[in-house]
């Protein structure tokens, strides 16, 4: 699929979601798995906008989405030039079994992202974060 450049503002989520929906359709992902890929992309894009670019503004101030449909899988890559951050190394929230009243609200989004896709990889090169999400096309759940 063609690339999509987005300004690093929360309003860009709509276009990002549309992009992922189109990708999922092109790859023939079942609705449940398309929804999961969407969730992962939304969480990662939101995290980059709110935290990545939140404090220390990168020069680029953009997100780049790239994607592909292959015979066995679809992938979508999120590229940004915020400070290096590897979402694949995030620890799961420690209080997953605690009552809501005692929960601290952080860390859920990246955890959900990692749990929702079949594979997630991270690379930092050329001064940019590159997170790639993979969904197998043959899985139905």
């Amino acid at each position: 699929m063609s690339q999509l450049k987005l300004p690093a503002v929360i309003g860009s989520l709509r276009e990002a979601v549309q992009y992922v929906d189109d990708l999922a359709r092109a790859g023939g992902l079942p609705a449940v798995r398309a929804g999961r890929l969407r969730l992962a992309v939304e969480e990662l894009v939101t995290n980059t906008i709110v935290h990545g670019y939140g404090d220390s503004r990168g020069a680029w101030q953009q997100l780049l989405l790239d994607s592909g449909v292959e015979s066995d899988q679809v992938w979508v890559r999120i590229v940004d030039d915020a400070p290096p951050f590897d979402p694949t190394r995030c620890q799961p929230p420690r209080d997953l079994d605690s009552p809501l009243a005692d929960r601290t609200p952080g860390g859920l989004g990246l955890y959900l992202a990692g749990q929702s896709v079949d594979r997630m990889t991270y690379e930092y090169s050329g001064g940019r974060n590159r997170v790639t999400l993979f969904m197998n096309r043959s899985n139905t759940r």
Partner: protein
Amino acid sequence: MSFTTTLTRSGNTVIITLVGELDATTAVAFRQEVDRAAEGDVETLVLDMKDLTYLSSAGLRGLVFAKQKMSDGVKIVLVKASDEVERTIRMVGFHHSVVFSDHVPG
């Protein structure tokens, strides 16, 4: 993405009906509705999710906000959550703190 809420109050039960997609762009509307709900004495907070098509972590933080905004004993009932919405809630362990139901208690 569209998201709307309606609030009805019946005694100490508040019912918030969620329609559409609850994500980072719409979560503020949910929190405002929770604020309104918390203005009175609430024993049971019912979230009618039958027309909620999507829930992300921003919406989950709204659930934490609701629980912490109201008294400790408030019971949160989620009605007719879709499989995917329920899965997201279970994945982060929130099912320990809410009740899933097929109908609005009453």
